[in-house]
């Protein structure tokens, strides 16, 4: 789930609520459709969304004729199934969850369109598109969010070691207390980063587990950190390393770090 498109669950509306809502609005729309007019609009809107989102040859193909993903036309799908799959995706397959990336109106329309490919009568009036309930971040925090995950920084970005809102690699523990300011952020101590010695070299390490047989640790020599597993006898865990979090942030200047902090404060210190 991308931080740029936060889950509606954060606003309190659970996924089930959304699914129910789509079904409900569709049912209402269908009833209105039968009462007269509007169904064609809905189908047209749905086809437009479908063509932009689902119709590429790598996915379901134009008019659901199949592409790299299965055929959708004439499959005997019912409305509840289509709604469920469009909203939540299919676990373990290439089908993503669109419940958090499409607006409610688009979602309803595309479900109606796929329904029409399965012989379910096109539905009624286009549901007004009020858009997804998006969390509006203050500008500074929005900037910080972009910086936190910024792909063009490669392995120098924060999310190479930190996971917030379900995105990023959880090398470090979830961010707990967010530092007050950049000076405090730069001064963060990391006593849990220790010197490990293995295969003839000593390196900064974050120990994950220290069993009688194996030791698992993150080797912080390079970014991205490497999760390494050693036989317990092969590795020696020493005292605190001189590795510093400040050096890991070298790609960011003070102004950028201020924005990142503004984001983390709003993000509530990350998902626990």
């Amino acid at each position, binding site marked *: 789930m991308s931080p740029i498109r936060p889950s509606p669950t954060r606003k309190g509306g659970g996924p089930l609520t959304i699914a129910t809502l789509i079904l409900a609005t569709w049912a209402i729309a269908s009833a209105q459709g039968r009462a007269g007019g509007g169904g064609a609009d809905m189908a047209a809107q749905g086809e437009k969304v479908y063509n932009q989102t689902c119709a590429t*040859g790598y996915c379901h193909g134009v008019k659901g*004729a199949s592409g790299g993903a299965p*055929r959708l036309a004439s499959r005997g799908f019912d409305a509840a199934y289509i709604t469920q799959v469009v909203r939540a995706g299919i676990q*373990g397959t290439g089908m993503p969850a669109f419940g958090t990336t499409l607006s409610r109106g688009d979602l309803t329309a595309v479900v109606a369109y796929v329904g029409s490919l399965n012989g379910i009568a096109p539905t009624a009036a286009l549901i007004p598109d009020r858009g997804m309930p998006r969390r509006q971040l203050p500008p500074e925090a929005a900037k910080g969010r972009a910086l936190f995950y910024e*792909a063009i920084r490669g392995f120098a970005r924060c999310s190479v070691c930190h996971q917030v809102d379900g995105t990023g690699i959880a090398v470090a523990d979830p961010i707990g207390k967010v530092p007050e300011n950049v000076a405090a952020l730069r001064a963060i101590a990391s006593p849990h980063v220790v010197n490990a010695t293995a295969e003839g070299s000593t390196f900064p390490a974050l120990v994950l587990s220290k069993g009688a047989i194996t030791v698992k640790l993150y*080797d912080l020599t390079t*970014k991205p950190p490497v*999760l*390494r597993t050693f036989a317990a006898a092969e590795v020696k865990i020493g005292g605190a390393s001189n590795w510093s979090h400040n050096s890991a942030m070298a790609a960011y200047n003070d102004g950028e770090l201020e924005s990142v902090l503004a984001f983390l404060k709003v993000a509530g210190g990350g998902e626990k």
Partner: protein
Amino acid sequence: MTKPRLLRSLVIFPLAMLPAAFAQDGATRNEWPSYGGTQLAWRYSALDQVNTTNVTKLAPAWIFQTGDPDNGLQSTPIVLDGVLYLVTARSQVFALDAASGKLIWNYKYAVPRTPGANTQNRGLAVGAGKVFLGTYDDYMVGLDQKTGREMWKVAVDDQRQCGCAITGAPLFVKDKVIVGSTGGDGAFRGYLTAFDAKTGHLAWRFYTVPAPGEKGNETWRGDSWKFGGGATWMTGSFDPALNLVYWGTGNAASDLYAGDRYTGKDADGVDLYTASVVALDADTGKIRWHYQEIPKDVWDYDSSYECVLIDREVRGVMRKLLVHINKSGYAFVLDRTDGKFVGTWPIVENHNWNTGVTEDGKFLGRVEPVEDKPTFICPGPDGGKSWNQTAYSPRTGFLYSPGLEMCTDLVAREQEPAEGRGFIGGTWTHRDPKDGPARSHLDAFDPVTGKKIWTYQYKYALLASILATAGDLVFSGDPEGYFFALDAKTGKKLWSYQTGAGHRGSSISYAIGGRQYIATPTGWGSIAGRAMAAVWPEAETFRGGSTLIVFALPEGAK
């Protein structure tokens, strides 16, 4: 696992029979050490125990079912020191006794629990005592070659953000393992990453799309470089003498609409280094040369496929060449020392996207998709060939390539990029070519001139890789489940065997204790595999699965 027992080789080295100029050797023998056979990507075995006269006696010696049939079996097995290493679509790794199929170890990677996973895997790399696995969720993992124990694991990217996945086999080069990724049909900036084989430490990363301040960034309009595509989703090659790693780069994104990325200037390339072959210094990842095959790619012609490294005479002069096919239906012949264009030739009959090509490789009369109106274009984004790899035999001197005669109605559409989400910029619908029904073929070509020596025609799509052997055999499999052998000189079908599931993987050959084996993955799947149902409705019945079938001559029947 001892080396000496493997030295009882049955191999008659064919190189001795060739002109002295063929000093370079890309053949495999008792082992199959790398994705493309050797790092030169010939997919050619110098074993000749199985040959044109006895191939009809081939029978299964052992069969291994992975138990992980999701999305078929696309893998190329690796064989080293009598052990065969195999990976499934969902990143499950097996080490098997290559003579008996007995399980030695199994590394169980966590299967995907989230929607949107790209579960495909085309193979492993093995070297420096480790087995290297790239995963569907963008990790590189180093396993102990003897025990399968995880030694290191590192996040190459975050699948939830990049929308990318590692589906191609990594390439082991000297002391490093190099790996690419998918993502170029989404809003994504491509790269190639090298890790230290021993520790997993980052060695280098090369971005296929240069950042501002780097040469080549000026070939992108505005900020379009940030999501410019250029995915490195297949496996490259390595020339040890030149210390160069060669890799094909994918299409620019959005795939079909260039309005947001095209600067209007063509002289020095468009949207570099997409739809190109790049040559990188193996130690540093620094670019030495590039050749852009499809400047301003608006067809998803994607130059990601294998780079076949051969030394051949061109107009009387011995040259170090790189032969590379992309989706456009053309093969490109380059000088691999400097990337200079040597020639190009078509691998398919239907390639209407241009009206001709100049002596220096410029395509004329390009037919480009337009907005909101279908344009009939051949080949389509499935390609004149899919990723399934060619084979090169130094005995016949031919390159054996699959070819797809398929066309599409392409529609371009302007699209706003959203990171990690689809960024195709249009749609396509499959169409039959003008000269008949959609079909495929396996052909033998002179790799320099493109002269077609023979053709083997097939009514559906051939989507399995090719294997050539010194027994003058060419092996491949079809989606109906037949694994077959052709005469490498004539293309005549000599043998076939119904394996019970469609073929989308890559067969190999190796020998243990003086017995030659031919191993083929079976199990239909993959994105292109599923897309065939839009062309042939019966393709929905092609059988999936995930089984390795290993053939040999009955013992004592040589």
